[in-house]
């Protein structure tokens, strides 16, 4: 029941993340093209447009990182993982990696929080369009929290996998007995 709830929630969040990344990407391409057209075709100099592009760019980066965490698609040197053939060892290796990742992600959360808190105490904005800096910085905070949650999910999945494997073996031995 809880598993199904989490699955449905994960799908919804995944859809939202992908939709937001799609929108950010389209805005970056569209605004950048508009910048070129404005300069060469209309002869306009649109002040601050680059700031808007950077805002959507930052959200695009961080949403992309979050999607990669959700799908476990972050760049990995999988040399050790490929050498492990035993399923139990594989799960234990995954649990160890997830635990290390989770601890490191918490450090990322602390860094992002300190940046955001510092920025809110001394509010800054972009010179052209007066965009508050916390807007793009919030994307880093979201990525930090999201990545921590996904690494916790991976840790939970691998630990339960090990436990299930143990109970399966016990059940098998019992049946054999």
């Amino acid at each position, binding site marked *: 029941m809880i598993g199904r709830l989490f699955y449905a929630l994960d799908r919804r969040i995944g859809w939202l993340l992908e939709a937001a990344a799609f929108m950010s990407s389209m805005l970056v391409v569209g605004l*950048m093209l508009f910048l070129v057209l404005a300069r060469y075709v209309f002869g306009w100099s649109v002040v601050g447009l680059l700031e808007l592009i950077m805002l959507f760019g930052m959200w695009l980066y961080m949403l992309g990182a979050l999607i990669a965490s959700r799908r476990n698609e972050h760049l990995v040197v999988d040399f050790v993982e490929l050498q492990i053939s035993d399923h139990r060892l594989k799960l234990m290796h995954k649990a160890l990696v997830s635990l290390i990742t989770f601890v490191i992600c918490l450090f990322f959360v602390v860094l992002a929080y300190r*940046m955001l*808190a*510092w920025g809110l105490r001394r509010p800054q904005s972009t010179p052209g369009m007066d965009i508050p800096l916390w807007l793009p910085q919030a994307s880093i905070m979201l990525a930090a929290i999201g990545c921590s949650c996904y690494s916790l999910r991976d840790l939970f999945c691998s630990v339960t996998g090990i436990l299930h494997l143990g109970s399966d073996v016990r059940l098998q031995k019992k049946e054999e007995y």
Partner: protein
Amino acid sequence: MEGFIAIGLLLLLMITGVPVAWSFAGVLAYLVYIFDVNLNTLMLQGYRSVDSVILIALPLFVLTGYLMQSGGIARRLVDFIEVMIGKRRGGMGASMIMASGIFGAIAGTATAAVASIGTIMIEPLEKRGYPRSYSAALLGISSLLGILIPPSITMILFAVVTRQSVAACFAASIGPAILLILGLIAANRFGVGRFFNELSSAAGDGLEPLPGKGRATIKAFPALSLPIIILGGIYGGVFTPTEAAAVAAFSAMLIGFFIYRDLNFRSFARSVVAAAETTGTVILILLFSFMIGRILASERIPQDLTMLVSTLIENPLLILIAVNMFLIIAGMIMDDVSVTVVVAPLFLPLMVDTGIHPVHFASIVACSVVIGANSPPVAPILYMACRIGKVSIHKTVKPALALMAFVALPVMIITTFVPELSLFLPRLLGFV
């Protein structure tokens, strides 16, 4: 000492299987602890480094690569090149090399080239007598032309982390890229008939018949116009590299939707999300590496490294050889992004001290990435080529090592010891 421990920790975390981005964050945590860094402003510095207009070119070129794949642009390019040179001796292998080169001139990534060109060409190559292991090795190394031929994402990263001109770095790697293309074509031609026989295309080989020369050219014209728009735009002073990336992505979109009509909304959306994901993984590495770089710079570690190496080795030639060897070894155990964003800035002061121009160093780093990305144990591109070629890595390692030893390594040596190869074009264009 702390610098070496940091690199050791990075390698340990990576080899353990911790994602590369989080391995960098782990090293950052270690450096923060050792040097008692102010956490309030550390992330702000990282944010400011990533908040760069030049870096926006990264997601846009990655998106272009994905759109080329899903929009049928890669298919038309391969058909065109196959029709033009496929019938000559070693022509099929040469087609793969040339297709990867042109793909690189549009998208600038090796992974997209491996996926696109490999999916299209491995099967026909096998039907023409090329062993799968050899095809996968050739695919792995030729796809890395995307790193040397502008617009190259590796060069964009190098330019950002070392504060060099992107256009100059782009121009610097063109010479080595041409040399690598020629070397690969020559090696392939040498191998045909000696190690395997190339069969002539015949009816009934199960392959889709290729269009005629004229038809293939007309079909490939929109795809072939892309590199002209991008490179002509950048070097003609019309666009900045970032604007060129946006124009390239938009053009790929138009071509895929309205000219080739291979793109639909679903495949388009998938490509956009995949591009965002790829960019996100790279940017996170970059964000942490910028912060690591700041700490190392404030502790004067690159300068200490320069002093240490200069006192140990006095001969500039030996320093160059040592740095080259270090770059290759780093490439064997790290991915291409990590080598570019960590090792390059660490060694740049030493290189400048030795009399190497930073732009020349950019092309040396790019050449080392070509070798590293195909060298086990990490070899991300070679592994990917094997997956696409459906062949085991054990069979592929031998031809891959042969291609690297006889082509990629000599290209790297020539690039290192003949600076003009890298500096001629940037000088001609007035960047250096």
